[in-house]
């Protein structure tokens, strides 16, 4: 009893008790499981056969196959067993896999160009949005701009309209400008949407950097742009990284505009994935394989910038 009493008096208001810590840890793990489970299910589905993928009750234990990935990357035609028997022996493991199901590979699918489109449009628009956003945020943060507050609100207001509401006018404009189904068009569109986010986020970060740093550099011999590049930017890296991740996640995942404005040339992954059709309907393992691949770049990018992102989210909360 006395031991318990001492322990309770030694209770610190800053340091959580072991029981609280365990409880908090449990909550975090539970949340992680809930969020990661669907992702794991997708990764697993990509390795299932078509029948396993739609089996009911769902199969947790199954025989893994690469069929889903092969189907994702190829276009196949069904042939008679006689025709297949007459063919020279299969050259590769995936030829063999396909022929087992009475099919031959007719050529590569469109997944690679679609993926490349996603990469170019996603990273291109992110770069542009962060670049323009940094310059604009710096200007808003440092200079006396007439009607600065109204301009900032105007910039934010471009985000208030749901994509569906502006989709048709944008479609009409893009048709006039011959920008429909072009990578440039998509980059411009996503940049326009992201730049408002970038300006607001980065302004907050740049406001936190004391202006004395660049003023010292200005007095010491730098021009305004040099001071921005060599003194302000190194200190704003955290904010830039966090902003870049948010911008990339948006343009990478964007679906509504992509469906409306792209169909061939510039189609990105989000509108492509749901229409991967196999025999007799949706080819779920191939869809799951595409989804898995689709998630990889964003995970890599986030992990690479993780350190900055964590600091970025808590930045400004504590005065250093």
């Amino acid at each position, binding site marked *: 009893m006395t031991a318990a009493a001492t322990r309770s008096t030694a209770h610190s208001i800053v340091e959580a008790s072991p029981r609280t810590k365990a409880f908090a840890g449990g909550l975090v793990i539970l949340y992680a499981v809930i969020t990661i489970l669907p992702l794991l299910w997708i990764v697993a589905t990509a390795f299932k056969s078509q029948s396993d993928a739609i089996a009911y009750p769902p199969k947790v234990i199954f025989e893994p196959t690469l069929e889903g990935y092969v189907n994702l990357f190829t276009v196949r035609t069904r042939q008679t067993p006689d025709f297949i028997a007459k063919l020279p022996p299969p050259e590769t493991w995936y030829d063999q896999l396909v022929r087992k199901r009475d099919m031959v590979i007719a050529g590569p699918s469109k997944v690679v160009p679609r993926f490349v489109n996603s990469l170019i449009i996603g990273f291109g628009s992110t770069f542009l949005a962060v670049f323009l956003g940094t310059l604009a945020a710096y200007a808003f943060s440092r200079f*006396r701009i007439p009607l600065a507050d109204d301009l900032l609100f105007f910039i934010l207001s471009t985000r208030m309209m749901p994509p569906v509401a502006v989709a048709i006018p944008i479609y009409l404009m893009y048709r006039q400008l011959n920008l429909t189904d072009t990578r440039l068009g998509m980059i411009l569109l996503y940049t326009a949407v992201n730049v408002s986010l970038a300006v607001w986020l980065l302004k907050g970060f740049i406001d936190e950097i*004391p202006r*004395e*740093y660049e*003023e*010292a*550099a*200005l*007095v*010491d*011999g*730098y*021009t305004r742009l*040099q001071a921005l590049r060599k*003194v302000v930017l*190194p*200190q704003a890296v955290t904010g830039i990284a966090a902003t870049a991740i948010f911008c990339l996640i948006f343009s990478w995942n964007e679906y509504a505009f992509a469906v409306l404005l792209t169909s061939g040339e510039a189609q990105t992954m989000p509108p492509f994935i749901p229409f991967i059709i196999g025999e007799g309907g949706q080819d779920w393992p191939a869809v799951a394989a595409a989804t898995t691949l689709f998630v990889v770049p964003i995970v890599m990018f986030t992990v690479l910038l993780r350190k900055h992102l964590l600091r970025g989210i808590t930045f400004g909360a504590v005065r250093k």
Partner: protein
Amino acid sequence: MAQIRIENLRKSFDRFTAVEGSTFTIDDGTFFAMLGPSGCGKTTTLRMIAGLELPTEGKILLDGEDVTFHRAAARDIAFVFQLFALYPHMNVGENIGFPLKCQGMARREIRERVQETARMLRIEHLLSSKTSKLSGGDRQRVALGRAMVRRPKAFLMDEPLGALDAEFRHLMCGELRDLHDRIKATTVYVTHDQLEAMSMADQIAVMNKGRVEQIGTPQEVYDRPASMFVADFIGSPPMNFLRFEGGVRSGDRAVSFHDTRLVVPEIREDRASAPLALGVRPEHIRFADAGAVRGEVFGAEYLGTTQIVTVDTAYGRVAARLPSSASVQIGETIGLEFNADRLALFDIGSGLAIRTASEEGPRHG
């Protein structure tokens, strides 16, 4: 090293005027302090001299050359900030060498100059340290080093000791003055702390509401304040003001203060009857039974060698600085006697001092 001349300098932001038409010259090699309460325009003036802010009107001349619209970098001036503004991603040596790197100086020469500067500031042992590990005083030394290394025409300092604690501030005051005596660079030093200004400066400009109220040596500003604002702002406790109504004529050696005559320094200007104030520093008050002004002791504040005794009189509360040995009872009625040579007179309407024999010379800004 250079002379700095400010002509009719004015700066307004939207509808607010920060600096209002000041004109003054800072001579080569002077330690010049700009002193005033916050928002008086001293920092804005300094930033205009540095080129970080462009004036709305007026001129800034460096050694006779008009630099009003030159880029900050083109003025060859160094600026020391209150928050030091050391670049966090560079170590001490890189910070000090940064201005030279900006100029594109050869690496070897930079190293030599950085060494020399560090030796002068006695921070050689810190050259490869991270700036975040330094104490406040050392950070300020590094900031000074970064300013000195370029051997600029002038140093501008914006409350450079404001972020230090009292102990370091006192130490750095001595170091700054010592440094100035060694390198003899024109220095403009902005502060709201009268002790810093008084202890270091050759010349002090007291500013209020965007105007320079008075420029003079610390002694002039203290002994012969040009306005009630200066008299009130400088000195702790500030000068006492005793109001009365009256007129003065050039040559008078006394004024009618209510129903008595008070001897004052010989008056040098004529004034029609108006509300006036008699200005007297706490240390120029003695307790004497025969004193012209009588009052009741309100309280005493012991300060070691002296004590500040506040007395309620018919003309307001008066603070007197007495030796701490004097015994004073709270509530007792005493007479106050003033040191006639050191009295000042002010016109309450304009706030300006009335010229007397002791006040000849103070310039009005």
